[in-house]
């Protein structure tokens, strides 16, 4: 195959500073985490589809889902998905607020970054605390 004439020729000249050189501000962390949790929930969508199918398949189907997800690795995955949804929810609200023009000043954006992280972990921990203390399953 012929070489792509538009491909830039590798240069030995110095490059301008890129991602690796900067101190990581917390706003960078929230941005990357928003994207990462979104990608993680693509896996979550597949798990949800599997759960819905297992419910529709009767007791055997339901048991086959729980046989996999009630294990320690399964619960770690579920915790990851619960936290991802909580994070993406709070961070998404922050993005919507930004789109409306609120909270975008440097100090405010840094502060609400920390708040988003804290709220996401608290929410995920609270949901698991409710479940493990036997207060889940209230729709029975």
């Amino acid at each position, binding site marked *: 195959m012929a070489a792509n004439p538009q491909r830039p020729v590798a240069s030995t000249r110095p490059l301008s500073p890129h991602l690796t050189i900067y101190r990581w501000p917390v706003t960078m962390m929230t941005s990357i985490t928003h994207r990462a949790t979104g990608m993680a929930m693509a896996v979550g969508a597949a798990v949800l589809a599997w759960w819905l*199918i297992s419910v529709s398949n009767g007791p055997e189907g339901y048991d086959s889902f729980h046989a996999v997800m009630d294990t320690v690795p399964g619960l770690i995955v579920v915790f990851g998905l*619960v936290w991802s949804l909580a994070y993406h929810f709070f961070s998404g609200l922050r*993005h919507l607020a930004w789109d409306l023009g609120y909270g975008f000043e440097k100090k405010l954006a840094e502060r609400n970054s920390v708040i988003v992280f804290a709220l996401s972990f608290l929410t995920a921990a609270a949901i698991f605390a409710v479940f493990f203390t036997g207060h889940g399953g209230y*729709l029975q």
Partner: protein
Amino acid sequence: MNSGQTPLHKVRGLGASHSGTGHFWRERISAVALAPLSLWFGYVMLGLAGTSEVTALQYLAHPWNALLMGAFVAISLYHMRLGLQVVIDDYIHSAGMKIFLVLMVLLAVLVIGGLSLFAIIRIAAL
């Protein structure tokens, strides 16, 4: 057809993607819809955690709950496709790989959505 617009006016503001702000706007609209639906989804999942298959079946068989779950799945997948599109656009620079991944995302969305909606309808019809 003469729309009264000059070619420059038609293309101005659409940018390099040729689609303007449509993608951005649809992502925001679906996000606004998903915010309350996610709260409902969390409430339901925690409420069904540790219960039997019959509880989940009966809860999801209720028409309102089936509709809400269907909306949550459908809008989530729509939002997911828009979001993953941006990730692909940002990180994949070869045209062939980009087209391949965009098609894979579409396929995943259709398969996951089809299976989920089929299961919801099946539960509601039981």
